[in-house]
């Protein structure tokens, strides 16, 4: 499986704070990767660098073999993005909003693409509703429709289920798995819901203080660290849990990246 997205040596500093430091990351073709870490770990900064919205101080990103720094437009043609916290343009209907983004992606049959994307999330009935009248959950679903309407090869999702009730969140997770299985769409997702991470992520990249702390299949990472489960690992790294070894997050600064494959 080749890499669809590949980042090498990403580093980002905001004033005196190093937000992301020497992060290497890949997402293979058709792979599902979960980016995890406590608040302030550098997840969103990393995602925004991977999407070209923030320039890294050091390092490079390639998407589908194209340098993001030099060919941003071509690199982003087959990438979709949605974030649970991101509103939609105001004063447009859902159909108009999605048509707008479909045009930006150069889609020919816009109506078909919009209908298909809405159907994927079961929200066809919202097509003519104005975006500012949507509930936060509905807006999140429309954001997800926006992310997939151009049949992307990679979908990047920042906390996609954060504002959804459990039933809709379940539907979204199933929809993402279906997207991956049926169309081979690679998924890079961040989430604070560890059950979601285990379900969606074939591979886990655990960030802490801007660096990759653990990487590998979720079960293997948990096994390697000796924690009871991913939740316990998360709490331990965040410094508020009593996981294996009672290691507070401070200790992680001296520890090199642990991969799921390395049975330490």
């Amino acid at each position, binding site marked *: 499986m080749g890499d669809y997205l590949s980042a090498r040596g990403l580093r*980002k500093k*905001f004033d005196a704070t190093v937000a992301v430091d020497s992060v290497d990351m890949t997402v293979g073709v058709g792979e599902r990767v979960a980016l995890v870490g406590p608040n302030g770990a550098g997840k*969103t*900064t990393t995602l*925004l660098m991977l*999407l*070209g*919205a*923030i*320039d890294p*101080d050091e390092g490079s990103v390639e998407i589908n073999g194209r340098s993001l720094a030099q060919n*941003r*437009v*071509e690199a*982003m*043609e087959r*990438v979709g*993005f949605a*974030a649970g*916290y*991101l*509103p*939609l*343009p*105001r*004063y*447009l209907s859902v159909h*108009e909003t999605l048509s*707008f*983004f479909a*045009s*930006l*992606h*150069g889609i020919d049959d816009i109506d078909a693409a919009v209908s298909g994307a809405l159907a994927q999330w079961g929200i066809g009935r919202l097509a003519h509703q104005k975006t500012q009248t949507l509930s936060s959950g509905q807006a999140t679903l429309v954001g997800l429709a*926006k992310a997939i309407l151009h049949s992307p090869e990679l979908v*990047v999702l920042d906390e996609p289920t954060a504002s959804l009730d459990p039933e809709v969140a379940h539907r979204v997770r199933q929809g993402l798995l279906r997207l991956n299985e049926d169309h081979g769409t690679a998924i890079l997702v961040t989430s604070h819901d560890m059950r979601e991470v285990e379900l969606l992520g074939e591979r886990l990249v655990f960030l802490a203080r801007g660096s990759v702390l653990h990487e590998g299949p979720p079960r293997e990472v948990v096994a390697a660290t000796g924690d009871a489960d991913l939740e316990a690992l998360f709490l331990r790294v965040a410094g508020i849990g009593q996981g294996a070894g009672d290691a507070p997050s401070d200790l992680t600064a001296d520890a090199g990246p642990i991969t799921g494959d390395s049975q330490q």
Partner: protein
Amino acid sequence: MKWTRVKAVALRHWRAQARQPGYWYILIALPVLDAIMFASIGVAYGEDERPVAVLVTGIMLFHLVWQLTLNAALGFLEEIWSSNLLNLMTTPLREQEFLAGLTLISLARTGVGISLVGLTGAALYSVNPAAAGLVLIPGAMILLLFGWAVSLGVIALVLRYGESAEVFSWGFIFLLIPLSGVFYPTEALPGVLQPVSNIVPITQVFDAIRIGLDGGGVAWGRLAVALGGTVITAGLSVLLLRKMLQTFRVKGLVTNFS
């Protein structure tokens, strides 16, 4: 640059603006009210028809600069108010395509605005909006270019300083009105301000327009100076915008608007 993306941006803004009363007020009410106010001042204090023609022509042409600047800046601010910048930045949309789409919708609105000023002057005050003659064509082109340059500068400032720079979208006009001699020769300004006025490129355009209104033909020399100054202003605006875009990406300012 892809035309479909330019058109999509223009359409998105047309739809959003058409549904907000404030944009209709700016589009229709302000030009008409400005025309009535300045023409009435001309009628009240002028001894013949010339002051009315000068004032109506002045405000009509000034709306070229103002409406273009205001509409482009408001269009960009709409993306900020909608927290839509991150959505846009994660698509294949180029900055030039976005700006071209905004310029397109701004030009259309500017056309409506100045037409309303001219029609109001003609219908209510019997002013011929084309009385200055041929000079209006190159003069209007230079003013449009200047308005576009100013709008790029305002967008650059909003990118860097966020909504706090919003004031420049409309506030810049109050700097330009007195200094560029829209309604009077710059000799009427206090001596200390006259050198400042002379470096505002569009001052020469409004001088040329008054010469045209007095039957003096096209003052090509003044227009050439105005064009040179406007091209320099546009170049500086483009450089400023590029610098601010770079700063925007380096400092990760998109997170302030998401």
